[in-house]
């Protein structure tokens, strides 16, 4: 095959360069690089991104081939072997494009955002480590290597959430993310065990060949899918393991954009999509994926409406969007799910970076109640954020519209009418809370202190240029890859991966067009409601909250999910630990140890009187012993 040698080099270098950047920056950064610590990591990630684009172009020109390359054997233990193997197909190509380009832009943005931070070198080292792990995750050709990347990005997520580790809430949030993810990863690990016992391999090609030939029993298949999905629920922040993602906003904003919006949280979606040949063989697992996704989508959207922290709103919208992706995968609209992932990576990354720019302008303020009227003061941020928000709510013709419409319409076409209805309500809620975010931040009068107001300024070009570069795909991606709906370029591109998906031709004048109009109408209604509530008549939200206190409190308090976790698993664990301490440790363990010591003391006390210190007494014992011995011997001898 032509160009394979260069492809090997590219695939090897894509993860290796960021790893190199991580090691060098971490070891030498503090001592030697100082404020120049970004140069090497940024340069290496740029090269990696360029190579990712090359790998994508390879997939583009070789759509029906899969580039597979086993670099070396990683684990060899009897029947169990795992290669350090990479593969590139069209799905990997799209992921590479998202991760490479957004990763690169976030690196550039961070130069401005993290300027002057005492952990400057550390930040870029971690970002590079993250890029390495993420690339390994999407390039892997077996579950174990994917899991390595999976845990690697989890580690980086932890390190970067608690980046400002002197802040108690940040280090707590990092721990929370790590622990909650452990729950999902446990399921993923069990899923891998089950795959290996069922098929004897972890290599994608081998496992999927088994599945295609129907060699895996139906029950086992369902369990495999459910366990793998558990991992995805943790990593992609689905209900009930979503609680870590809002707290993860304690990390620096570029991290939220890169890890907690555009790339890492998509890993669960990617993994489920990658396991497509397994999932299509289990209707039960598909149903579970769809139900969890649908519920998460509306649940997170409901919470997002009342949050006041600008990043928290976007965090809940990310959870909601990921729910949309799972809804699509579970309903069988696989391509629509990946299309949404593709578009979401750009516009959600953009939204986070814009919110970072807003926070930067406001001197670190994240509370939207203190913002307002920023439209004129930071125009570039405003316009790019508006593009991101319109893409997010699904306004025609931005990227989100085409992707979301394929999902919403797809559920209807496949006969899941309840899911479709829930999705429409979610679309409405999305339009309302995104409208609220934009209107509260950019419209009206500024509500901050005079001192803060005096310092409001547009971010430097190193931050705004990535915004513009991300706004372009956020606006145009849908038009380029998603037209015409249901049979756009992305469908034919991903067809080799999702080989069994049938899609009916889209009718502009028929059912498809009608569904599209309905969802568009819902979006516009949502935006109008938001405009009414937060621009024209700002008294209404407060009155509504007073009128329906329970509804409002449920949303504002995140459906009490943290409280439930506090009561059920955490409290009971602490109580159990307390019991272990007060009963088992104190009574049993300490009791045994102290008991032995006490027994020694007691026995010593009893035996002490025979040690009189008089030689004659000792001699008497010797004689006594002799007499006893003689008597016994004589008695034995006689009888």
């Amino acid at each position, binding site marked *: 095959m032509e160009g394979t040698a260069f492809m090997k080099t590219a695939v090897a270098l894509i993860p290796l360069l960021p790893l190199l950047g991580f090691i060098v920056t971490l070891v030498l950064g503090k001592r030697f690089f100082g404020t120049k610590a970004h140069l090497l990591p940024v340069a290496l990630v740029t090269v990696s991104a360029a190579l990712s684009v090359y790998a994508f172009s390879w997939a583009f020109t070789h759509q029906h081939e899969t580039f597979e390359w086993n670099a070396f054997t990683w684990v060899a233990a009897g029947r169990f072997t795992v290669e350090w193997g990479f593969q590139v197909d069209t799905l990997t190509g799209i992921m590479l494009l998202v991760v490479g380009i957004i990763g690169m832009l976030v690196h550039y943005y961070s130069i401005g955002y993290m300027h002057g931070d005492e952990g400057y070198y550390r930040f870029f080292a971690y970002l590079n480590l993250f890029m390495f792990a993420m690339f390994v995750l999407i390039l892997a050709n077996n579950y174990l290597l994917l899991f390595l990347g999976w845990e690697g990005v989890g580690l980086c997520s932890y390190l970067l959430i608690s980046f400002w580790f002197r802040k108690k809430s940040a280090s707590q949030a990092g721990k929370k993310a790590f622990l909650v993810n452990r729950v999902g990863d446990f399921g993923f690990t069990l899923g891998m065990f089950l795959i290996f016992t069922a098929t004897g391999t972890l290599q994608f090609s081998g496992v999927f060949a088994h599945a295609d030939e129907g060699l895996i029993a139906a029950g086992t298949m369902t369990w495999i899918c459910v366990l793998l999905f558990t991992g995805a629920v943790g990593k992609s922040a689905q209900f009930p393991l979503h609680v870590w993602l809002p707290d993860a906003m304690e990390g620096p904003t570029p991290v939220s954009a890169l890890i907690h919006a555009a790339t890492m949280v998509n890993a669960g979606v990617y993994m489920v999509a990658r396991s497509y040949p397994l999932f299509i063989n289990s209707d039960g697992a598909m149903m579970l994926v769809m139900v969890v996704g649908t519920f998460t989508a509306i649940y997170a959207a409901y919470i997002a409406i009342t949050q006041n922290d600008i990043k928290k709103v976007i965090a809940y919208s990310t959870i909601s969007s990921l729910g949309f992706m799972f809804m699509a995968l579970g309903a069988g609209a696989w391509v629509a799910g990946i299309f949404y992932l593709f578009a979401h990576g750009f516009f959600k990354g953009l939204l986070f970076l814009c919110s970072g720019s807003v926070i930067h302008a406001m001197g670190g303020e994240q509370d939207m109640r203190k913002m307002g009227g920023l439209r004129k003061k930071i125009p570039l941020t405003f316009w790019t954020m508006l593009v991101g928000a319109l893409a997010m709510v699904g306004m025609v013709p931005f990227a989100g519209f085409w992707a979301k419409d394929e999902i919403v319409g797809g559920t209807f076409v496949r006969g899941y009418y309840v899911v479709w209805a829930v999705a429409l309500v979610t679309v409405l809620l999305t339009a309302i809370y995104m409208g609220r975010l934009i209107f509260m931040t950019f419209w009206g009068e500024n509500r901050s202190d005079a001192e803060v107001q005096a310092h409001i300024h547009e971010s430097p070009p190193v931050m705004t240029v990535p915004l513009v570069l991300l706004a372009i795909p956020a606006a145009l991606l849908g038009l380029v890859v998603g037209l015409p709906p249901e049979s756009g370029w992305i469908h034919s591109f991903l067809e080799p991966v999702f080989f069994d998906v049938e899609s009916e031709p889209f009718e502009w004048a028929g059912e498809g067009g009608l569904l599209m109009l309905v969802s568009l109408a819902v979006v516009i209604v949502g935006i109008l409601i938001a405009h009414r509530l937060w621009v024209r008549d700002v008294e209404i939200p407060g009155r509504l909250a007073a009128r329906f206190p329970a509804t409002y409190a449920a949303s504002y308090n995140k459906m009490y999910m943290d409280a439930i976790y506090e009561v059920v698993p955490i409290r009971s664990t602490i109580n159990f630990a307390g019991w272990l301490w007060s009963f088992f440790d104190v009574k049993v363990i300490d009791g045994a140890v102290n008991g032995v010591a006490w027994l020694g003391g007691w026995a010593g006390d009893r035996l*002490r009187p025979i*040690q*009189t*210190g*008089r*030689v*004659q007494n000792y*001699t*008497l014992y010797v*004689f006594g012993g002799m007499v006893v011995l003689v008597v016994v011997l004589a008695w034995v001898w006689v009888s």
Partner: protein
Amino acid sequence: MNPLDWWLLLAILLFCIGAFGVLSRRNIIVVVMSLELMLNAVNIALVATANFRGGSPGAGTLFSLFIIVLAAAEVTVGLAIVLANYRNRRTVQTDTFDDLKG
């Protein structure tokens, strides 16, 4: 009673006197003397048995020679300890040697 029994009776008598002395006296020199008495009682028993029970008379006498040599060595060491102890305490009474009593 044959003649051997008389000799053995004498040996038992001497042994018991010695044992009584060891157990009852507090003067350590008397204790050592009593010890010698016990050793010699054994000697008498050995020599008498060797003499009256036939076999090789050499074995019994040889044993008593060993015991005599051993006793001499023991008394040397024992009296040296008594002397050293006397220098420290100015006494040879055994009931004062109770430093190890808890």
